[in-house]
């Protein structure tokens, strides 16, 4: 019986191990980046630091999806939309920070607006030059969209495949909308050419390191938060909703409220992931809304293993590392590999990597202990 509070979630074994490994890896990378000179064999390049930061953002996104899919059974094919919205909110802030250093040198209007011959800033661009306001948007916009969308969907009991398909339609519609210049988010090209964040230059190595650390901290906090949620009674109700929704309803739970709660929290986490992602890659464009991205995200979680939280993180890092390696070595083969991964995981490995390890763990353990038993008996003899 787990009855967790935020404190117990912070101190339970899984969380301790997770945070330990996460921080150790981050710290190691940062130290190797800062301490060793560029020509040393132990040096970790800034490129790698940024790559790691990117992976951690993906991991946070995967964590968010695992919360709704693994625990609540809502397969969202539109989580990339929340990620992208968080990213756009951050991008707007970064855009305003450029100030008059843009190509056209306009102090208030971002370059693309000058290019489109706009005379003044659209109303929704006001205020984003303050970081606190942008941060608020990063939380609110994805959260609000998820809340409204979820409220409509869950209230009318859209479930399963239908829900998946309309979430996909949602991100598709957003993608089409963001491709339009008239919407005021840079159309095709999106937002880019960022200069600095909170006064730190985005080109500087120290900022990159800072962003990596921020991503690691965000991931750790989110992980503990998710542990807390899934370990609480709320988590058990959510699981009950996933397994037997109508029973949960007949027991007296408003299942739509629970789903909505989890969906919204998850969307906010996805938004934070997007906001951390954008300054590290230096661009946000409507391609992030593409349904393909959202569905690729699903496969990270599936590969890692659902409903374990750390499985999602592992999946995101493993698949993306694979992607980096593959696209470097043989770019044509990546989509074959990804496609194959979808099929293999769903058909042969429905529990994912962590599931395979967990299933075989008792056997492994037994074999190990048998070996030691034999050794001891041999010793006795």
């Amino acid at each position: 019986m787990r009855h967790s509070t935020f404190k117990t979630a912070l101190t339970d074994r899984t969380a301790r191990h997770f945070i330990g490994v996460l921080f150790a890896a981050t710290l190691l990378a940062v130290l190797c980046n800062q301490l060793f000179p560029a020509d040393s064999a132990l040096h970790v390049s800034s490129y790698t630091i940024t790559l790691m930061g990117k992976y951690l953002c993906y991991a946070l996104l995967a964590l968010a999806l695992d919360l709704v899919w693994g625990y609540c059974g809502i397969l969202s094919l539109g989580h990339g939309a929340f990620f992208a919205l968080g990213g756009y909110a951050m991008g707007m802030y970064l855009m305003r920070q450029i100030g008059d250093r843009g190509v056209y040198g306009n102090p208030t209007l971002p370059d693309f607006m000058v290019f489109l011959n706009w005379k003044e800033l659209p109303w929704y661009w006001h205020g984003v030059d303050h970081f606190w306001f942008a941060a608020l948007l990063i939380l609110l916009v994805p959260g609000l969209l998820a809340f409204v969308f979820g409220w409509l969907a869950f209230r009318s009991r859209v479930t399963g495949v239908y829900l998946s398909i309309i979430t996909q339609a949602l991100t598709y519609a957003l993608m089409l909308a963001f491709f339009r210049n008239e919407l005021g988010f840079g159309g095709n090209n999106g937002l880019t050419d960022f200069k600095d964040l909170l006064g730190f230059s985005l080109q500087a190595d120290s900022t990159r390191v800072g962003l990596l650390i921020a991503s690691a901290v965000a991931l750790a906090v989110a992980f503990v938060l998710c542990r807390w949620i899934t370990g609480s009674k709320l988590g058990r109700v959510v699981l009950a909703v996933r397994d037997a929704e109508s029973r949960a309803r007949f027991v007296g739970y408003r299942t739509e409220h629970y789903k909505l709660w989890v969906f919204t929290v998850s969307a906010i986490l996805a938004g934070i992931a997007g906001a951390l992602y954008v300054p590290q890659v230096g661009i946000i464009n409507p391609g992030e809304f593409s349904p393909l991205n959202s569905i690729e995200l699903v496969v990270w979680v599936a590969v890692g293993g659902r409903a374990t939280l750390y499985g999602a993180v592992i999946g995101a890092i493993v698949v993306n590392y694979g992607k980096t390696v593959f696209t470097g070595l043989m770019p044509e083969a990546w989509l074959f590999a990804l496609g194959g991964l979808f099929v293999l995981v769903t058909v042969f490995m429905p529990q994912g990597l962590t599931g395979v390890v967990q299933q075989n763990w008792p056997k492994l353990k037994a074999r190990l202990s048998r070996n030691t038993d034999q050794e001891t008996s041999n010793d006795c003899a």
Partner: protein
Amino acid sequence: MTALDSLRETFRRDQVFDFMRQGTRPVLPGQVDAGKNILYLEDITVSFDGFKALNDLTLYIKTGELRCIIGPNGAGKSTMMDVITGKTRPDSGTCFFGQTLDLTRMSETDIATAGIGRKFQKPTVFPEHTAFENLELAMNAPKGAWHSLFSQLSGEQRDWIEQTLATVGLLDDRDKVAGLLSHGQKQWLEIGMVLMQKPQLLLVDEPIAGMTRQEVERTGELLKSLAGEHSVVVVEHDMEFIRSIASTVTVLHQGSVLAEGTMQQVQNDPKVIEVYLGE
């Protein structure tokens, strides 16, 4: 004429204005205004694509009564349960819980909160939770999302759960995942869950399927002991079992009540004999 009708409707004596009516929102459990009867089903009709699953069904359940409902397959027993618990909306007719709660306008959740517990024909428990957790989830406690996030089990609640586990004979399997329980154990667990809801009215659909002789007896005992404090409606096929527990029996046929009375009376009713034995 129509104006007169709507005027008449507005000033019906048995009804206050719509916006003043209670029942669209649930009251807290225990606030059911039960008089002599706890459940009023009147002229309920449900049809699926022309097939009438319930046909002008009228049925009253007395407060504290143990009522058995029998009937051949397709008589509408499960549909009746669905209507009471809000899963199916009737095409016409009224369904009141106590004097004030209009069940046809409440959601499943509200109905459950108002004090109606249901055990399904096919035992449905939460398969990935332990027996203990199943009961904890079913427990009569605040059920909002934020509340659940911060909720901690008190010692009393823990005792209560364990008491119930003992009642349904699952104390030894308390930490076993419910999906791994045997069919009979799942039946018991579901009954336990319904008990944890502290309902005013229990709807029990085929409780003894998959149970051993002994378990059947214990179920009978349990149901009988529940009556009085709670009102219980049992749907069952097993005549033996019904005879052992029944006070009043209602026979459903083709979506409406065919006969009602003691087991003796019902068994001697020529209409019932005809339905069960054919011509």
